[in-house]
């Protein structure tokens, strides 16, 4: 599913970062741990194809990402990967429904209304379908972001610090929600975090050392 070997990346500033080798098999979840500045986000962006030009090997579903052109990388990302960020990054100009529609539209997939209904009601957001994003509470907005990430049934879901801004109760709720939706869609969940509270939730862990 995910295979990282001898991976390193050079920042524009010139300093390079070396990542440990690891593999994650399909359906397995994994925690990417490390202090701030240890390169968690960089690794996540490399895995998601948001950053290119690495050295070493990085394979997602047996595809070496460096071999994809930028346009096919965009398509690959849209169809196989769902992202969840610490901030929800919903598009304020659009309603909840249109935010969700963006996922299949941008990935070049068919927009299925039933699928949106299914995902929204699974996350308890059915009645918010036509709401403006700006009218949602933080929790609701985060659930919409999760709904958007899983809508295309991606094989991998990357979550970058999804819980670090949350209190214990909400942290618990969100990580369970993430694991539930990932299981539901047979997706691999990869969470990058420095949040110690998550350590006992996912046993499969990769440690990044600080620079």
């Amino acid at each position: 599913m995910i295979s990282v070997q001898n991976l390193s990346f050079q920042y524009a500033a010139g300093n390079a970062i070396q990542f440990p080798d690891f593999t994650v098999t399909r359906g397995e979840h994994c925690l990417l741990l490390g202090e701030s500045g240890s390169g968690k986000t960089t690794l996540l962006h490399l895995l998601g194809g948001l950053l290119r030009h690495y050295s070493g090997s990085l394979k997602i579903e047996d595809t070496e990402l460096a071999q994809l052109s930028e346009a096919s990388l965009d398509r690959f990302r849209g169809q196989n990967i769902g992202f969840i960020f610490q901030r929800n990054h919903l598009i304020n100009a659009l309603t909840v429904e249109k935010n969700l529609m963006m996922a299949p539209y941008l990935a070049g997939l068919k927009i299925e209304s039933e699928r949106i209904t299914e995902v929204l009601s699974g996350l308890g957001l059915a009645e918010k379908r036509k709401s403006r994003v700006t009218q949602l509470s933080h929790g609701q907005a985060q659930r919409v972001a999760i709904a958007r990430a899983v809508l295309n049934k991606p094989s991998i879901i990357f979550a970058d610090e999804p819980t670090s801004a949350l209190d214990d109760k909400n942290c618990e709720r969100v990580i369970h929600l993430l694991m539930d939706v990932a299981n539901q869609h047979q997706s691999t969940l990869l969470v990058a975090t420095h949040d110690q509270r998550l350590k006992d939730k996912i046993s499969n862990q990769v440690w990044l050392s600080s620079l």
Partner: protein
Amino acid sequence: MSIFTLVWNYLKARPLNTAINILLLSLGIAVITILLLFNKQLEQKITENARGIDLVVGAKGSPLQLILCNIFHVDFPTGNIKLNEAERFAKHRLIKNAIPLALGDSYQSYRIIGTSQKYAELYKAEIQQGNWWRNNLDVTIGANVATLTQLKLGDKFASAHGLADGGHTHNDHQYIVVGILKPTNSVLDNLILTNVESVWEMHEEHAEEEEGHAEHEHAADSNFIPSPLVPSVGKGDSLKEITSMLIQYRSPMGAIQLPRLVNSQSSLQAASPAFETARLFSILGVGVDILMGFAYVLIVISGLSIFIALYNSLKERRYDLAIMRSMGASRTKLFVSILLEGGVLTMLGSLIGLLMGHGVLVLLSGMVEETQKAGINGFIFYPEEWIILGGSLLLGLICAVIPAIQAYRTDISRVLAGN
């Protein structure tokens, strides 16, 4: 979901900004549209009305006035000329046609023209109802006159002296409507046509009272030679007067010789419609140019405003762009979406501007009688309007190209890692 939905929602999300940009542009476009329509139609009217008339001969005075009065019927006569002086040119070998005009009276501000049948032929006029004028005091009226004054066949009316409504009326003699013309889309639509003798008859009563002349009926003597201009009058009649004479040349040589020949006659003046209307346009042109310049300033400002709006909104939208990339949008798609946003804004602005321009002219022609008389119509569309639409689309794309390049270059990783 489509790129249009996305762009439209972004525009809707900033309603005030979008509205002001559209308003600015549409005002500029509206001014340009009005000027375009007005200029085009006026020019068309003027050339149509002056078509076939090579020279106007009348009393000395302003040549422009002579043209305005005798071709477009919007100004007052420069004075009268003696029929026998005009006759001298009427049979000149370089002249194909000479048409006499006798002006002076009006009915409800529609001018009554004493002339010959050839005048109506100039505008290829056809009868809609009734007949051409035949006897004295018969009139055939233009299509506009018929609709706006409600005159019908057989109606009688008294004319008023001068052009203004409510001047001195000639109550003793009443004209009778014998015919109504089909619309010719020319100045003829606003005229009341009769023969020259009728106009004389209207005015000779005064002459009789004041000067004690007997009415000047043409004597039926054996050596009566009819005047080439007004056949009922003897050639060389020294008393009759007309306002002017419209001339068609037989050959281009006429344009060279005749004006000089006429102008050398002390009491007559010749004016060329082509030359005078060109002069009129160059005078009007200054005002048109200023308005045009104003419109372009509006358009440039709206372009700048659109650029600034897109540029600023892009700063707020960096995360949106990055997120869209993370969902699989290509750089090109984002580039196109920003371009489209500029294009949609300017297309809307120019469409609304075109509608406003036409709307203003429709209102104007409905409310102001002068525009109606001039035949300005708000429902006519010109191919130049496609150029306006195309130009504004281009403007939108140009304004959006820098923001779009910014969108294209968005470093997704850095933006997403930025917080």
